[in-house]
């Protein structure tokens, strides 16, 4: 997997250089955005609700026992926005959208559609990669914000209703408001941008690399998803180090 990183960086660089053409491809960007929203909004909602809930469920009783129930909101708020929303949404999108990108581009490669584009002097990077990478890097951060909000509500819901914690809505959200600051949201936002680029570039690269028939497409899809997730988790650590260093 790591020998491909150089190729992926080249693909990323070419996509960056194609950025001025985004306006011309806006219809395809819109199509992709719709696709992403349509495929993942409901899923993101359910996922986030349960993640917020389970953090409260795990940590709430322990904190409440020690008289720290006023920090539950802060804990859920911070972990959701700095870590869980960006990473979980990235994993979800890698599974749902990264796989689709790799499959679509991969089958176009195998069935010579990309060759046909080249003979028509249509650059596959402009036509295929650019709209996907642009769309995902718009969509993922939005999805992450959405996931944070839903996750907070999930946490609050459990904190209010679970009898071993049992605090009020006001207590939960005032604690959250006290600790979660704008730079924490920025922290999550930056991560989600980085993860979006990873998913887009890895999946498109795998798609373009596809060789062989339907088997090859299957292999590409698996690799796109697995490599995206592995890279996201590794990048997450180093990115956090850097962001913490700059106190974001």
């Amino acid at each position, binding site marked *: 997997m790591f020998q491909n990183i150089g190729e992926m960086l080249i693909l990323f660089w070419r996509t960056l250089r194609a950025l001025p053409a985004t306006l011309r491809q806006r219809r395809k960007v819109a199509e992709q955005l719709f696709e992403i929203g349509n495929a993942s909004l409901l899923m993101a909602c359910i996922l986030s609700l349960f993640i917020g809930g389970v953090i409260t469920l795990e940590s709430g009783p322990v904190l409440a026992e020690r008289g720290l129930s006023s920090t539950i909101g802060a804990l859920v708020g911070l972990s959701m926005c700095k870590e869980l929303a960006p990473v979980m949404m990235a994993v979800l999108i890698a599974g749902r959208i990264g796989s689709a990108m790799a499959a679509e581009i991969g*089958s*176009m490669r195998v069935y010579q559609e990309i*060759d*046909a584009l080249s003979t*028509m*002097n*249509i650059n596959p990077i402009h*036509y295929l990669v650019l709209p996907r990478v642009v769309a995902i890097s718009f969509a993922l951060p939005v999805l992450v914000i959405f996931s944070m909000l839903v996750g907070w509500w999930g946490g609050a819901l459990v904190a209010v209703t679970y009898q071993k914690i049992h605090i009020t809505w006001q207590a939960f959200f005032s604690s959250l408001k006290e600790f979660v600051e704008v730079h924490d949201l920025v922290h999550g936002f930056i991560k989600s941008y980085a993860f979006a680029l990873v998913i887009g570039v890895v999946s498109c690269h795998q798609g373009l690399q596809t060789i062989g028939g339907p088997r090859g497409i299957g292999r590409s899809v698996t690799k796109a998803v697995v490599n995206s997730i592995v890279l996201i988790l590794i990048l997450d650590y180093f990115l956090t180090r850097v962001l913490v260093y700059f106190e974001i």
Partner: protein
Amino acid sequence: MNAADANSRSVSVQVRGLRKSFDGQPVLFGIDLDIQPGEIFVIMGPSGSGKSVLLKHIIGLESPDEGTILIEGQPIDSPGVMDKFRMAMVFQSGALLNSLTVGENVGLYLTEHRLKPPAEIARVVAEKLELVGLKGLEERNPSELSGGMKKRVAIARALVIEPQLVLYDEPTSELDPLSAVTIGEEILNLNQRTHATSIVVTHDRDLAFGVADRMAIILEGRIVFVGTPDETRRAPDPAIQKFLTSDFSFKPKSKL
């Protein structure tokens, strides 16, 4: 350099010492060809002899291990050649974009390069589809077409480009004899109308002798003969004669 000028001339194609192997398995053993501007050049040979691979090299989809391809004297892989000359290829499989409708496929070149306003594109698309006998099928999806229909859509897509150089990979291989003749006529028409240099790869002998100005025979990755159709018929090489004359005469002809 006058762009309009360069866009209306037909182009010459030269292949020089082209060699290609896949995974150490040689496929092309030093191909040399000179194709004149405006001629219909047919490359004939049995299945697996390397015709499709040769064609992909000519339009720059594959890069040679050795040798060069020159379009109007300029290497195909030098920057700007694809922008300067209009080229089109009709793939053996059609290679239509499955995510687009038939109409969008045919008009793709014009829409992506913004050469005409949408209404004008729709008109051109309808016209070319009619030309290949698929009038009114714009809204269909490629997956709903038969193999032969796909091939004809692919030909319409190439016609829209109004190419200076057009490559056909087995244009008639999935067509019934009647449509095959139509396609042959279309290849001739396009050539006569625009003088587009046409390279036709086929193992259909009727098509080959019907349209060719000159033809080459490729056997196992080597060009063994180049000449006019008449010269080819008289070629002394027994392997060529075998390829040209074999037919389905297993059963004795019944007397009617």
